């Protein structure tokens, strides 16, 4: 127990704790929206496409998260554009952007002279090395997401549930779709450092699946998802620290164990 208390006094751990809070809230809310709307794989496409931006940033020598934002937003809008305007089937559009981003990332990293030691932390994340600057960005994102979902809660819910109906009533559905896509892109990128590109889908889906065991109300689902995301992230962090295993993987593993456990318990009740 004293080892845990001691842990809280470390600077790196305090930062990781804040990162866990921010990641849980942003992924809880955005993930709840993604899951309810069944656009998990659009989010997967955006996430993986962002790797292209990270590669480009390594190659040209600027901040990798900036590159990731660029590619994530571009692919988010690109998928929408391909599907709605160019009439390409949605799952194909997703696959095109998904694989294009990964391919560009690999090409750029390959062309970058020298060794790129940080690459692993983008692919698999490391919550214990989050920087102060990244924390500020995450805080800002959280403020934006919470405000957006508070002010436009009903509009978001109605569009997510029945887009056609919202459109017949006269809501600016397309604008909301683009805005939420951009928020998804930003959420993905700013949480890459926590669990990594490969694993971020889990923070956007597993806590939501767990929350969905207990509520069918959209607002409660968003809140409960954040709570389960936080529990899983914290527990995963401790396990990662004490067993000395990668934090991203350990967080995901914990999230799945929590989901599986509660699902089994619930089926017996």
């Amino acid at each position: 127990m004293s080892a845990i208390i001691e842990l809280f006094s470390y600077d790196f751990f305090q930062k990781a704790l804040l990162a866990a809070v921010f990641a849980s809230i942003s992924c809880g809310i955005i993930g709840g929206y993604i899951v309810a709307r069944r656009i998990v794989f659009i989010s997967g496409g955006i996430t993986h496409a962002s790797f292209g931006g990270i590669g480009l940033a390594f190659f040209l020598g600027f901040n990798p998260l900036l590159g990731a934002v660029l590619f994530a937003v571009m692919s988010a809008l690109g998928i929408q554009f391909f599907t709605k305007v160019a009439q390409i089937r949605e799952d194909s559009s997703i696959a095109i952007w998904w694989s294009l981003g990964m391919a560009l990332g690999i090409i750029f990293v390959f062309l970058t002279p020298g060794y790129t030691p940080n690459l692993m932390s983008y692919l698999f994340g490391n919550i214990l090395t989050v920087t102060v600057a990244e924390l500020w960005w995450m805080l800002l994102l959280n403020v934006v997401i919470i405000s957006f979902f508070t002010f436009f809660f009903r509009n978001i819910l109605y569009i997510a549930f029945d887009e056609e109906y919202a459109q017949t009533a006269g809501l600016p559905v397309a604008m909301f779709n683009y805005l939420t896509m951009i928020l998804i892109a930003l959420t993905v990128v700013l949480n890459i450092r926590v669990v990594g590109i490969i694993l971020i889908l889990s923070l956007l889906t597993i806590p939501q699946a767990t929350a969905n065991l207990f509520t069918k109300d959209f607002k409660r689902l968003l809140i409960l998802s954040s709570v389960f995301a936080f529990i899983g992230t914290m527990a995963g962090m401790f396990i990662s620290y004490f067993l000395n295993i990668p934090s991203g993987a350990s967080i995901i593993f914990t999230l799945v164990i929590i989901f599986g456990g509660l699902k089994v318990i619930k089926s017996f009740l």
Partner: protein
Amino acid sequence: MEPLLKIENLTVGYDKVPVLQHVNLEIFDRDFLGVIGPNGGGKTTLLKAILGLLKPEEGQVLFRHDLRGRKKPIGYLPQVRHIDRKFPITVFDVVLSGSIMENTKRAKTEAKGRVDDLLREMGVADIRNKAIGELSGGQMQRVFLCRALLSDPKLLILDEPDTFVDNRFEGELYEKLRHLNEKIAIVLVSHDIGTISSHVKTIACVNNNLHYHPSNVISQEQLNGYNCPIQIISHGEIPHTILKHHQH
């Protein structure tokens, strides 16, 4: 009398392939129009054009001048098979979404009160807090009818409201619609010609173009003359017999 809704020379479709061509139609207050026709003939396309979901390639859909505000005067009940039944939303929130365009605090509060009134009127007050996935077909239709009515529409559009429902509810539904029709106009799409003709006042046959029948009776001669799609659906005498049966 100026019509509630006027469709003039409407050509509309998907990806430049017109599904409906040169359609004209007028809907007046307290009309009860049944829309029939074969699958793929353009019934849903017509509804989508009226609802503003599809842009006309030619012609126009015009509402009466007093109904052209920000808030559309239409209540819409979509085909329930298009609804995601696993979506995490409660019955109360589904119905409340009918007040989507209310933006004053007072109107929003009033809408919440009206949700409970409507659910009670429809006899489903007890499922208020249930998730949408827990409902039966009849309950779903009632809930979506409540949503369509929440905004106090002048025109109610129903896309096959008789699917997934039991006979008892079907009877209740048409009774309810007859009552509503004392105040508002109704457009009802169905492929059940027998049912439709015994409840509606007028009929529109939609099959790439539109033939309007100013009564709920269609004679064999008219069908032959129009090359009406009923023949295509029914391949024979049976539906016509049903239609004639209601002539009195």
